[in-house]
């Protein structure tokens, strides 16, 4: 299965929670941290279940989520 991770831009996140609803593997949670605009921002759990499906980022109104596909570095190779 494809592995992935996301980065949340905490300045842009407004804590609307739409991403949490979309995440099928429950890798995003409502955080404790308040950003400088007073919004409670969401957090990426990063427990290895993210499959880079991008649904969270697609639904994010504030373009606050970046999605990365993560692959193992080849030991033999270049």
């Amino acid at each position, binding site marked *: 299965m494809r592995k992935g991770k996301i980065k949340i831009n905490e300045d842009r996140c*407004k804590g609307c929670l739409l991403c949490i609803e979309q995440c099928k593997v429950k890798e995003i949670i409502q955080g404790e941290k*308040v950003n*400088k*605009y*007073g*919004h409670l921002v969401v957090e990426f759990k990063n427990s290895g279940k993210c499959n880079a499906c991008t649904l969270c980022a697609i639904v994010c109104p504030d373009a606050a989520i970046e999605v990365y596909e993560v692959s193992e570095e080849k030991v033999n190779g270049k």
Partner: protein
Amino acid sequence: MTEKVIIAGSGGQGVLTLGIFIAKIGFSEGKNVTWLPTYGAEKRGGFSFCYTVVSDEEIFSPVVESPDTLILFDQRAYDVYKEKINQQTYVVVNSNLVKNINKNNKNFFEIDATKIAKEINFIQAMNVVMFGAYFQLKKIFKIETVYNVMKQMLKGKKEDTFLKNKIAFEKGMEFFK
């Protein structure tokens, strides 16, 4: 007596309601009052502030340039108004959301109003906790008026809403006793 207050924070924190609350208390005690809100574009989460003036005399401008008291709910509010702090200004900040401060004033007071409001399971009353602190520190209003106006403003709400607000107010007040 003239008391010029600026209350600032973010939309949804009860900034404007607290301003009206103070104005109504002043009005109930027979003072002249003005309350002037900001009417920003963004409904929630945006910067929000209001000016409240309570005075025995005629109030000329409702715009407060040099406040007697600043009640600041978060860091952005502090950053915007820190320039207005002088040695005489009373400053009450919610230390939960205002961390980066330059405390060079004897009347600078910090209270973790968010934590206190959470402890009594009534996070919406953060502003009332802040008011409790302000009430205790400045001692310009009568406590009976506070309860009367609180009751009047919560008319139509559930019975225990008043009690919860009363507790929030008292917790804020006790903090500086």
